[in-house]
């Protein structure tokens, strides 16, 4: 923690421009700084700015090593939406920004309130959200602790910190928040370079092989999807967008290396919009024949991903349809080495290969003949079946998210089949195992009810299906691979659609 320096209050655009120019001592226009200041201003967070001198910032101290720069020249700006001047004790905190002497940003953590409408937002979703608590020095030498939600941001310094290191540092800080045991020794870009096997002072970014080495050395699991040899149509065919969306929805930020006109760049994907009234989602299959024969891609309703771009600033909206055209590779740190199957493959196993198979239909028919379904569930089952034969934009919508066995149990807590799920996962001690939970919906309940009518669990390592739940009935598989035994359970109560699992891995720290 540094020490209190002064207060500022900004209430007009001219004041804001003057303030911005006063702290960015360079000729060019500092885009990230202004993006941060203007988005904060729009939500009233520049009403009070507290300036802290010489804050504790390991990254900047490291940057100054071996140069003439003095780490004490860093200034930290804290932003508050206090309307009464001089008091910040009861106001909302908008975050902080560590500004290098040239106006670039050595570290920032800005509230998500700049892009969302608080807890009621149903348009912007940030599953890769972390919380940050900060002790702020006050004028009377007391301190104030504020906690906000957001994602860390850092701008390159054109030396040892380029976009790859900046993106990785943000993701490292995020995973430290989710799991305090990981990335214990990583604080700065130099730390990343060292672990990647390159010179700490390297003036340049990293390539995917070096990033792979970094994760290997720190002992954190990572999936690297290489699209460098593919052309646009092929990346589409590999369901890149579906996979990126599912990892984000599972609270796993994705670093994407993208091709620019003069080289490569790294972006960090942390959230998405949810355009439930999307015309394209209906019109693409309905008018233009763009239709998966088996289900309706959930990304049809995702127009934008929310990204961090070290060159431009935090929380930009990135059009999802552009990703397959510019992707080079995707880097996804994951919480377990056993995540081998990709989300689109899990959805394919669950829906196309299983639900649509003749054997599954025949199996169900025979079971239901001897053990009929509850009358009210026949209605839900029938509704579900209608979406297996899509004619336009009404196909089944799978939503695939990463869950541990413990998460699945929590998700089924208030459902009649919770005892089945619990018995299944406890019996084989699968609480700690990872599954792709393929939630099954159709457009109306997916968009406007944020609900599902069933779930299929696919083991992320073996690709085995452990549990199939469709309206009114579930099938659980017990036993080892060679002698798996199916069990069938018919619901005794109405099995109406129920709420989606919340994004992310539930048992992770929030």
């Amino acid at each position: 923690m540094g020490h209190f320096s002064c207060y500022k209050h900004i209430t007009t655009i001219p004041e804001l421009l003057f303030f911005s120019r006063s702290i960015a001592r360079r000729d060019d226009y500092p885009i990230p700084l202004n993006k941060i200041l203007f988005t904060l201003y729009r939500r009233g967070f520049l009403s009070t700015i507290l300036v802290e001198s010489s804050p504790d910032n390991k990254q900047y101290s490291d940057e100054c090593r071996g140069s003439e720069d003095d780490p004490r020249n860093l200034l930290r700006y804290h932003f508050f939406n206090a309307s009464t001047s001089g008091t910040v004790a009861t106001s909302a905190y908008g975050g902080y920004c560590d500004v290098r002497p040239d106006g670039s940003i050595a570290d920032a953590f800005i509230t998500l309130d700049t892009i969302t409408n608080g807890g009621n937002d149903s348009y912007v979703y940030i599953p890769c959200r972390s919380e940050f608590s900060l002790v702020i020095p006050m004028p009377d030498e007391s301190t104030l602790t504020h906690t906000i939600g957001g994602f860390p941001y850092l701008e390159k310094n054109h030396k040892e910190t380029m976009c790859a290191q900046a993106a990785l540092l943000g993701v490292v800080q995020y995973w430290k928040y989710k799991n305090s045991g990981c990335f214990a020794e990583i604080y700065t870009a130099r730390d990343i370079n060292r672990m990647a096997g390159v010179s700490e002072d390297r003036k340049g970014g990293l390539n995917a092989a070096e990033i792979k080495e970094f994760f290997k050395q720190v002992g954190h699991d990572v999936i690297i999807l290489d699209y460098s040899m593919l052309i646009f149509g092929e990346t589409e065919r590999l369901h890149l967008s579906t996979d990126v969306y599912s990892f984000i929805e599972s609270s796993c930020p994705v670093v994407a290396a993208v091709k620019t006109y003069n080289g490569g760049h790294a972006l960090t994907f942390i959230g998405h919009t949810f355009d439930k009234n999307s015309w394209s989602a209906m019109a693409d299959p309905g008018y233009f024949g763009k239709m998966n024969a088996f289900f309706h891609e959930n990304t049809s309703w995702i127009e934008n991903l929310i990204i961090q771009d070290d060159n431009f600033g935090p929380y930009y909206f990135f059009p999802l349809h552009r990703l397959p055209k510019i992707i080079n590779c995707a880097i996804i740190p994951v919480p377990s080495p056993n995540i081998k199957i990709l989300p689109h493959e899990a959805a394919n196993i669950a829906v196309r290969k299983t639900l649509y198979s003749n054997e599954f239909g025949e199996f169900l028919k025979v079971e239901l003949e001897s053990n009929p379904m509850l009358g009210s569930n026949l209605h839900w089952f029938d509704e579900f079946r209608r979406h297996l034969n899509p004619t336009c934009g009404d196909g089944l919508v799978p939503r695939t998210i990463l869950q541990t066995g413990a998460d699945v149990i929590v998700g089924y807590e208030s459902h009649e089949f919770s005892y089945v799920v619990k018995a299944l996962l406890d019996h084989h001690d699968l609480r700690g195992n990872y599954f792709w939970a393929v939630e099954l919906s159709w457009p109306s309940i997916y968009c406007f009810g944020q609900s599902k009518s069933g779930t299929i669990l696919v083991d992320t390592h073996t690709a085995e299906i452990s549990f199939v739940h469709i309206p009114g009935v579930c099938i659980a598989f017990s036993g080892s691979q060679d002698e798996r035994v199916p069990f069938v359970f018919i619901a005794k109560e109405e099995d109406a659609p129920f709420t989606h699992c919340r994004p992310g891995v539930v048992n992770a720290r929030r």
Partner: protein
Amino acid sequence: MSTLRELADNNRVTDREQITRIMKAVQKGQDAALNAMKERERRSKENDLRGFHF
């Protein structure tokens, strides 16, 4: 702790034909996914990840 077997002896599918059907249904996808995974791993070994700095 209740196991599936303890919970649901009545729910256990015993008909051989039925077991074959459902296992066939779930096996198809598993095989396809494991093949895709192997192919991905093979490709990633062949690909040179060093060519693109960012």
